[in-house]
């Protein structure tokens, strides 16, 4: 006779189920972040200096390749592996900072707009709508044409282009939160508008902001790569993946495939992981955003 195992009931606090947790994407993202952090120690060569004598070396496993340059060299003889490793740093730094700055701005304005209502809401939402109508990449290119490309400017530009997506969603959530009992009670209890927004509204929209941020990470990284590819992103000789793709185009027609395929694979890996994680978070944390 089988002995029945007692069912252990976890308190609701701990019922956050991890069954379909996207382990691989999380590991990949963590891996990329670690590579970015320890780029200096991991890269076998200087990413910005090469020797012209060693140009266009293929990866080690192809004829003509050597173990010295595992993934080959580019048109200036720079080590591709080292450039990919340092490129991770650019993508991680630019991607995460831009997402955080855009998220903070958008969430703040979304809360203010939704909670205060009236003319403040009108002004913020008209600006949001207008900026949303501008095609993101074109808008970003226009801004780089004005302020000029640099890593810092790219972060500001990406944040300026993408904060509207947060503002829109967060405002919608605030509109329904505003009508809930606990907010009304806080009003009756005499809390000031700012303390209600800060202590009662903000904690309740953070989940959505985090989900949106994860999903935006992919978008932001692709936009950064596109800007660098077009020559208005991270300025050379800094190794950014988008910049490497643009350089790789030079050797593409003669078959130097590694210069095109490898940086693209890195971008894809990072964006795919961010999207998978974002999708999972969306379902777990925020049922309201499932429709997105």
């Amino acid at each position, binding site marked *: 006779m089988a002995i029945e195992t007692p069912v252990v009931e976890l308190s609701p606090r701990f019922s956050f189920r991890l069954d379909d947790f996207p382990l691989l994407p999380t590991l990949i993202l963590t891996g990329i972040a670690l590579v970015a952090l320890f780029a200096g120690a991991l890269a076998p060569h200087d990413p910005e200096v090469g020797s012209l004598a060693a140009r266009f070396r293929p990866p080690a496993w192809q004829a003509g390749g050597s173990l010295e340059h595992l993934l080959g060299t580019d048109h200036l003889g720079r080590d591709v592996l080292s450039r990919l490793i340092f490129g991770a740093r650019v993508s991680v730094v630019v991607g995460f900072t831009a997402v955080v700055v855009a998220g903070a701005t958008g969430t703040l304005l979304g809360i203010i707009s939704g909670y205060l209502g009236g003319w403040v809401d009108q002004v913020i939402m008209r600006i949001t709508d207008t900026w949303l109508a501008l*095609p993101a990449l074109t*808008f970003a290119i226009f801004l780089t044409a004005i302020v000029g490309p640099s890593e810092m400017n790219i972060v500001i530009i990406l944040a300026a282009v993408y904060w509207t997506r947060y503002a829109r969603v967060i405002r919608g959530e605030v509109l329904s939160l505003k009508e809930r009992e606990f907010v009304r009670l806080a009003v009756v209890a005499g809390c000031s508008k700012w303390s209600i927004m800060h202590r009662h509204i903000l904690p309740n929209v953070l989940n959505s902001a985090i989900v949106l941020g994860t999903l935006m990470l992919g978008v932001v990284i692709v936009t950064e790569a596109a800007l660098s590819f077009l020559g208005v992103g991270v300025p050379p000789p800094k190794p950014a993946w988008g910049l490497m793709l643009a350089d790789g185009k030079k050797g593409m027609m003669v078959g130097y495939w590694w210069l095109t395929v490898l940086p693209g694979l890195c971008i894809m890996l990072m964006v795919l992981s961010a999207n998978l994680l974002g999708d999972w978070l969306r379902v777990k944390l925020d049922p309201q955003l499932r429709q997105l």
Partner: protein
Amino acid sequence: MTHYILRRLGYSLVSLLLLSLTIFLFVRVTGDPTTLLVEPGAPQADVDAIRQRFGLDQPIWVQYWTFLASLLTGDFGNSFYYRTPVLDLYLSRLPNSLLLALAAMAFSLLIGIPSGILAAVRVGGFWDSAGKTFSLLGLSLPSFWVGLVLILIFSVSLGWLPSSGSGTVWHLLMPAFALGWYFAAAHMRLTRSSMLEVLGSEYIKLARLKGLPEPRVIAKHAFKNALIPVLTLAGINLVIMINVAVVVETVFAWPGIGRLLYEGITFRDFPVVQAVVLLGGAMIVLVNLLIDILYALIDPRIRLER
């Protein structure tokens, strides 16, 4: 009805005004606009002429009015590089962009709609997960990288297709695929969710109860109704495609608006960059207006709202 349309028209006008104001302020606030609007190394007389023309010594609202008035007469300034009015340049490139966008749209619907239906009909099955993987890949692969890999495969290795330029159908295939790829995934997602919603509705249950064969239920009753949101999205996406093709057009040297924008940034031709972003925004505002009006014509509930 007229009231609704007038109100939507008003909103769109406000949007267009704000759009021009945004662009205007960005150019003025971030420094001396003459450095952007005058060619580098131009003689002092030219600099003065521009200052005179835009009234840069005038108060800012007078400047905005001058700017707006010249936009309304279709004057977007002259290109530094081509020495012709920017609007003429833009209009001469528009047909190419439209052609590319139409081809990419055809491709994305051809892939997106059937795979979306298949995923919805076999929900939870093999085709559904295959569709999910496909849509995830579509949304995660940057279009320019898809383009570069296509060139590597079909131009460099196989030598089947030309890697750049325009003129024949063969030139169109790879850029249309690279551009349509992302949208195919988006259309697939929407077709799937729209189909699922329709398949759960009462009239489909009735059609099944009547004993209609399943393929007929899907093709005749569900598909038609599920298609409406997809086609709406496709309408908006066509305009978006025209405006986001910068990277794809650069990769394939396709002579459209995106390529014009790329030339604008490479040659530091600011009037071109400004015109492309302004007209792109205006195009999207107008297509949104058009779709809202069409929806109101089709669906009386929207008209009566508010």
